[in-house]
């Protein structure tokens, strides 16, 4: 993939083409850019870049092991994540 120097990208190009910009990103340079004088967060962060970790993980073994654990319901999962009403 082609490397892009995102610090130098600014203006309406970013606003309208930021997905195209991120597709060319190999290593994160920055993810806050200037757009008409304002900082905007429009590009992929360094941690989101493709890494070699994918592909080698044995999902068959993982889910086989997972299914041996006690089963819980999705409603229980969702209930455990409910937040208090905001003030």
């Amino acid at each position: 993939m082609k490397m892009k120097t995102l610090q130098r990208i600014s203006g309406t190009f970013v606003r309208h083409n930021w997905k195209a910009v991120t597709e060319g990103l190999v290593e994160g340079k920055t993810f806050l850019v200037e757009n008409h004088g304002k900082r905007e967060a429009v590009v992929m962060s360094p941690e989101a870049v493709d890494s070699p970790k994918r592909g080698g993980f044995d999902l068959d073994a993982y889910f086989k092991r997972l299914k041996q654990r006690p089963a819980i319901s999705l409603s229980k999962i969702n209930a455990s994540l409910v937040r208090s009403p905001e003030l």
Partner: protein
Amino acid sequence: MIYLDANVVVASVTNNDHSEQVERLLRSRKPFYVSRLADYEARKSLSSIDPGAEKNLDQLLVEKFNQGKEWEAAIMQAIKISRRFKQRLWVDSADTLHVGWALSIGAEMFASFDRDSGPRALAMVMGLKLWPEAGPIDFEQRKLLKA
């Protein structure tokens, strides 16, 4: 890139009634992204429902998921969302931040089982695809954001 909401993260590390659906998702060739926010919420959830499953999360973060710890870009996107929707934004701060985080990393898809508090509808309005696919509840909630 597929952004995983906390409930999907928890569902991916526990044995639950949606495990097969989650397994199909994880077999996708797309990269997966877990924000520090989703990681925290998932660990908080696991501490109450299945503490032993936290090691599965550790493993997936090493072997399968990309993890993001950069809050600033996500917060700026969430603020942008807030300014756009103003009083129509009935989605809470954390769920808005999840959607903002997904946008900040250039995610194409937002994976969430939360059909109650609005992150799926908000993600849809912001142009993200949904996993599982959008249904009647999502479309109804989207109307509230457009009203």
